[in-house]
């Protein structure tokens, strides 16, 4: 659908209750993302500011370009996007880290899933707004590479920050390597999960979102 012509907005009364609830869930999660980013800005937490701005841009771009708040991303994706940020700023999560052995791994997985989600949204939105074209295998490969690479750059960024400010947020080599292992595992899982997710998504939802089907438009029917 091109901007300008035929932006037909369905009146609210014609939307099904599920559609409205799903959209509301997505808006609420995006608010979490937004306020977490504001919090990161206030604390000058540079890496998380970058993460928040990237995630919010990818969230808001389809809404703005199609001028329709119902083009919001699926709520499950928005939750995946905002979860690691909420975990990062939450004091409760910090306390759990000290008392629950697997909590660190849990946050690492949440982080990996959100990076993979950003990677996936990049494959979709690059095709919507630029001349980039990918097919399914390449998109899956890109999601995996993107997740692992950003996790790597992230650790380097944390390391540089530690060096500059004399802190040691990173912990030991094993701590960092575990995060990277989880990012690799999470990226692998989500790369293929998003492939299945697109195939499994019902056509009506695909239409409402008007967004996801662009991941290899031509032959999604054949799968």
């Amino acid at each position, binding site marked *: 659908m091109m901007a300008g012509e035929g932006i037909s907005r369905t009146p609210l009364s014609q939307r099904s209750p599920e559609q409205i609830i799903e959209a509301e869930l997505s808006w609420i999660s995006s608010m979490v993302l937004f306020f977490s980013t504001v919090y990161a800005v206030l604390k000058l937490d540079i890496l998380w500011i970058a993460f928040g701005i990237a995630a919010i841009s990818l969230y808001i771009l389809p809404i703005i370009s199609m001028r329709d708040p119902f083009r919001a991303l699926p709520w499950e994706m928005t939750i995946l996007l905002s979860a690691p940020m909420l975990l990062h700023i939450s004091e409760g999560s910090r306390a759990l880290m000290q008392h629950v052995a697997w909590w660190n791994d849990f946050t690492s997985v949440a982080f990996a899933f959100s990076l993979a989600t950003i990677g996936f949204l990049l494959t979709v939105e690059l095709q919507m707004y630029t001349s980039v074209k990918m097919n399914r295998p390449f998109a899956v490969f890109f999601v995996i*590479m993107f997740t*692992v*690479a950003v996790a790597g750059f992230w650790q380097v960024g944390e390391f540089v920050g530690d060096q500059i400010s004399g802190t040691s947020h990173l912990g030991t*080599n094993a701590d960092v*390597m575990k995060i*990277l292992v989880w990012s690799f595992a999470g990226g692998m899982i989500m790369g293929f999960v998003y492939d299945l997710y697109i195939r499994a998504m019902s056509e009506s939802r695909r239409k409402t979102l008007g967004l996801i089907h662009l991941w290899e438009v031509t032959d999604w029917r054949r799968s």
Partner: protein
Amino acid sequence: MEEKLKLISRGMQAGMVGIAVAGVVTGNLTWVPAALISLFFAEIPSLLRRDMHLVLPLEINLWIVLALFLHVASGFSGFYDHVPGWDHITHMMSASLIGALGFVVVVTIDKYVDSIYLPRPFLAFFVVTFTMAMGVMWEIMEYGNDALTGSHLQYSLADTMYDLLFDGFAGIVVAIVGAQYLTRVTPEHFVESLNVEGTKRRIGVLGKRRSARP
């Protein structure tokens, strides 16, 4: 120019043979397997050319031999142990090599797969991503190796982080050089110079030969 580059490659290969021989003669066997494996790797571009008709750019061939030679030579001569930071330099060389090979593959895919179109800025972005991801996987491999066999491939957090830092740096350099290169040479010309068509035909011939067997 071409002859000169080839001569340099040959010189470095001779150096690796020398290291293997010297290692055996002096009984200092630590670096002999690495030298032999590196000699084999250094021959792979020639094998690809002979058997698959695939022509890698001369610069990449030289880079392959240089990275292997520096690794073996600095291990054998004790450079790794005595010059601080030297391992990061060789690490960056191999990272840039992986990045360059990734670049070659992605440009070829871009040209040959109709459902894929990657404009130059995205290509550069992808090369950085790919190089960094490969670097992270390398570190994961080292970490796993250390955990399973008790080896000491990773010295410290700082060492690992500097490796990753240099991986990222190498990726960015290769992306810039690659993007610059494609402003001078079109992707079509580049892929043509690799003789991918010839390789495709060669694979077709090999496939037919196999299926013709009783």
